[in-house]
């Protein structure tokens, strides 16, 4: 690669790529070091093989400070892509003519006339830097590193994600609301068909299908200017339900919890009172208090007691019939 040159005015550095050409073939030299110009018009280049070459040039428009260059490998890039051409009329000659393009393209190499320096400050930055970067990518010895299949990496802290937590919380709130809202339509059996079935004792423990959702009519503004007329239908639907919409669905659940607590407290008080009464009754009645107090309602009152007699097939004792 590259000879790195520097613009004295801006101290901007960029590199040059040289091809060394003789009469027969091109060869790229790796330039190790460039010494300061020995005299006006000349500068020496130390090449990879250790030999110093002196470049001769004429008509220097501007003297530039030249820095040490980095190594690079030989590449198959054509001379047109290089910044300059080192020409010698003889192989292994100590003196080289350097041709540098004045307008970005290489001048004729067949002409052995001494080259003309160009003002490096007008050279393209990107071109120079690009070449430099490319050169660094190609060149430069990188020692091989041992291959690790699963290298240790620092994982981010699981708890240090407040934004994602907030998003998850909002999302779950919205989802829970919609599932309990009147907008979540279920394919349940209509009430009319339910009323046809006889409610059996075994159905008491089963969860009922009656939904606890509000109806759509409570929340939707079913006016003609909000929804298509065919969806609103008759005037009955258009009238808003008299029931108030439950905006806060959690409040209903909290009330249910409160009622459960009251019921439990009531049962406890009832039991305490019952125990207290039993104790009193034990003192007063004695043996009669063996029966435990139970609140079975009207079951034990025998007012409407049905002893499972078949009302339709009453057994006839034949008391009315005459005896033959």
């Amino acid at each position, binding site marked *: 690669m590259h000879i790195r040159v520097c613009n004295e005015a801006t101290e901007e550095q960029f590199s040059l790529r040289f091809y060394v050409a003789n009469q027969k073939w091109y060869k790229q030299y790796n330039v190790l070091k460039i010494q300061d110009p020995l005299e006006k018009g000349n500068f020496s280049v130390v090449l990879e093989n250790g030999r110093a070459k002196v470049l001769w040039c004429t008509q220097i428009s501007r003297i530039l400070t030249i820095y040490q260059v980095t190594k690079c490998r030989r590449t198959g890039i054509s001379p047109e892509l290089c910044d300059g051409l080192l020409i010698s009329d003889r192989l292994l000659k100590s003196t080289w003519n350097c041709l540098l393009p004045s307008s970005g393209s290489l001048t004729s190499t067949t002409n052995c006339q001494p080259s003309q320096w160009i003002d490096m400050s007008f050279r393209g930055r990107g071109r120079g830097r690009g070449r430099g970067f490319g050169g660094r990518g190609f060149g430069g010895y990188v020692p091989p590193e041992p291959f690790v299949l699963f290298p240790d990496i620092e994982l981010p802290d699981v708890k240090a994600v407040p934004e994602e937590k907030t998003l998850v919380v909002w*999302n779950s709130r*919205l989802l829970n609301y919609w599932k309990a809202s009147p907008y979540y339509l279920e394919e349940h059996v209509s009430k009319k068909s339910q009323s046809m079935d006889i409610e059996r004792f075994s159905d008491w423990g089963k969860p009922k299908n009656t939904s606890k959702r509000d109806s759509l009519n409570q929340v939707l503004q079913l006016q003609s200017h909000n929804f298509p007329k065919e969806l609103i239908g008759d005037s009955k639907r258009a009238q808003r339900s008299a029931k108030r919409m439950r905006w806060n669905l959690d409040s209903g659940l909290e009330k249910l919890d409160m009622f459960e607590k009251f019921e439990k407290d009531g049962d406890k008080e009832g039991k305490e009172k019952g125990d207290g009464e039993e104790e009193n009754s034990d003192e007063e009645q004695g043996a009669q208090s063996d029966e435990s107090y139970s609140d079975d309602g009207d079951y034990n009152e025998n007012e409407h007691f049905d002893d499972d007699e078949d009302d339709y097939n009453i057994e006839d004792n034949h008391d009315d019939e005459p005896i033959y």
Partner: protein
Amino acid sequence: MVTQYGIKYAVNLITAHFGDLVAKVCECLLRKGPLTLQAIVRSTELTSSQVKNSLLVLIQHNCVQAFILDQTGEHGDGAKQSTQYIALLDNIIQRWRFPKFLTVVSKKLDKQCAELLEGLLQHGRLTLKQMFDRAKSGQNGGDDVVQEAFVKLLNAHFIERCPASEPVLTNPTKEEEAARKRVAKSGKILEVQETLEQRVVEAAMPTEALRFLFATETEPTADGGKDKSNSSSVTPGEKRKHDALESEAECGATDEQVVLWRANF
């Protein structure tokens, strides 16, 4: 561009939010394009009431837009106007971003605005009165606080007026049809659907002047020009007292103009 995976994703979203019934109707509209109510009932094999309720839910949540297609008869018959429903895929997919919207609003504005916006996202569309009632039930501040938050959201264009319920679309002209025929067959159907959806949305959208306009009760009635254009409940040329307006709103007359607001996304 509508892809199969996009449709599947949208249907999954609707299923998670509103159940299988609504998702079935939504899928039918997404796969078959704009349909009438009868066509949806036939395709989904659901009852008419189920389809109607599903459409109400989808319209309420801005996932479906109804429109009237004005079809002129081919043999000189009278114009046929049938109400069709078109699914808005973009709006459905945006539902997944609702938590992000709330986060952005809570950062840019305040907590009250975020709670108000949450209500609008939960219900799709709400009137101002419903927003007040919701705030009272949740003990989130009085009417003044809610109105202040509402105005902030409106000024920031996070909420807007709801579009028209049934805009009327006319059939494209012969020139437009000829231009469409020149398009490759494979892309023709997609182009027609996108164009129709865009046309429907544009036709339903309120004008820019009205979209983010809120008529406050303190606006002076002396300025007749502004009042007529601002308030949607005042018929031009008629003077109404402030109290009369309030009483009519509270009575909830069925055909009264009650402005619905929704999130702007």
